[in-house]
């Protein structure tokens, strides 16, 4: 079962139940959005800027002949949006002037999650099935899902964690990176990394924070041995409190950090491990 219309107030939930939609393949999913739009004439179609949303929405937009707006961080009006460009070094206010639907992917860290209470249950939205009899299946067999490989982890999800502990190239090895993981464990935090740490094989790439990785905005972001390249800053500059630990006092990371410690992280992390309170 996949929910495709999931609005804030749950006015209606549509269910499209088909084997063709069993995997997150762009071809049938974009076709489904196209089909639902033709029947429902929505003014807006929105997904999150996840790898799923970014894969599907532009394809659906092309089928509907409209320009989508990627990675919206603020909705200023029904057709007026703010989005970061140049790795977050500029903010662009853009107006959609085309025909319906106006299509957006939104940066989820920029919008608060509405609280779900048990009291709201009686107002649960009606659920209806999408009529798939006109679902065009001409081109859908051209792609096949093979497999998904993921890193098993018990730590909180990087995208939604309250605290993120990140390490860079200065950790020097996958073995040393375990120090970061230990600290994260102590604080109940998610682990992040720079591209340099990923490319060096210290951690898998789904931990990468930055323009080309995950965008995070936790309450506390701690950067260890991270110089602070603009591509990395693009992924974490909206964090509430940023702590940087680096032995180079001139590292650009200190320009965005609220608290900085200059020193050897191999001495400072064990000390932090000892002195930081346990949080689970």
């Amino acid at each position: 079962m996949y929910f495709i219309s999931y609005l804030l107030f749950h006015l209606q939930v549509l269910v499209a139940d088909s084997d063709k939609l069993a995997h997150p393949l762009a071809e049938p999913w974009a076709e489904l959005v196209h089909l639902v739009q033709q029947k429902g004439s929505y003014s807006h179609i929105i997904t999150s800027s996840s790898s799923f949303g970014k894969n599907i929405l532009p394809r659906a937009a092309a089928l509907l002949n409209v320009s989508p707006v990627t990675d919206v961080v603020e909705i200023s009006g029904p057709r007026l949006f703010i989005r970061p460009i140049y790795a977050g070094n500029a903010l662009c206010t853009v107006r959609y002037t085309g025909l319906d639907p106006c299509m957006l992917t939104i940066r989820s860290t920029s919008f608060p999650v509405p609280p779900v209470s048990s009291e709201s249950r009686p107002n649960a939205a009606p659920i209806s099935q999408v009529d798939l009899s006109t679902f065009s299946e001409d081109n859908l067999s051209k792609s096949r899902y093979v497999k998904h490989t993921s890193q098993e982890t018990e730590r909180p999800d990087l995208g939604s964690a309250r605290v993120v502990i990140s390490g860079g190239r200065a950790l020097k090895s996958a073995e040393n990176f375990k120090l970061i993981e230990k600290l994260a464990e102590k604080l109940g935090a998610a682990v992040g990394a720079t591209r340099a740490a990923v490319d060096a094989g210290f951690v898998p790439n789904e931990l990468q924070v930055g323009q080309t990785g995950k965008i995070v905005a936790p309450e506390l972001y701690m950067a260890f041995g991270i110089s602070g390249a603009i591509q990395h800053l693009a992924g974490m500059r909206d964090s509430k409190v940023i702590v940087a630990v680096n032995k180079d006092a001139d590292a650009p990371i200190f320009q965005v950090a609220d608290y900085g410690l200059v020193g050897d992280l191999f001495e400072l992390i064990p000390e932090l491990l000892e002195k930081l309170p346990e949080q689970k």
Partner: protein
Amino acid sequence: MKIMVAVKRVIDYAVKIRVKSDKTGVETTNVKMSMNPFCEIALEEALRIKESGFASEVIVVSMGPAQSVDTLRTGLAMGADRAIHVDAPATLYPLSVAKILKVLVDIEKPGLLILGKQAIDDDCNQTGQMVAGLLKWPQGTFASKVVLDKEKQVATVDREVDGGLETLCLDLPAVITTDLRLNQPRYATLPNIMKAKSKPIKKVTPQELNVEINSDLEIVHVTEPPKRKAGVILSSVDELVDKLKNEAHVI
């Protein structure tokens, strides 16, 4: 099989950009421009496929003002066989780019269209998906590994998705967009830069391709992101723990 690669001329990734004082955009005059890093990876992948004997020709395409030819020359110097320059205004949105690419694909009939996953200027991450939709071709976005099977005419693509890797099998022709870890792009050598000067670059206009460019987006203004207030350098771990507890209240 031919491979078509779309490349974009953007402000060099290492440049610290400046927002124009009239808020109409970002300063691009007298700023170093280069090929978008993801496009370099796309071209590298096409060249490797050609070198492995699967493809006969690699065509690079770029859209934009006259200076886009420099980016195409870089592509030719890396090893592309010929280039197409679509002479168009600098502010083309992905939908227009996708429509132009579709027409070029209809003319050139490549078996594979490779693009970068996003351009580092507008950070849109749309063009590849859109052109795949217009062509009704399957798409393999954010690719970190591409394996072609000549007999079966399929591409097996590993994709970087949230929470891991996903493997897809696509019938050719297909559209692939490249992620950072797909490969390490080569440098153009001096002899190849010299050779590139004699390789053909065909110039066309959107009008000649019968693509109407009308935009449904309007940039209202571009501003600098809010500055973070200056932080402090602390002298000890004790001080840091104290600040996090009693000043920032985050632990």
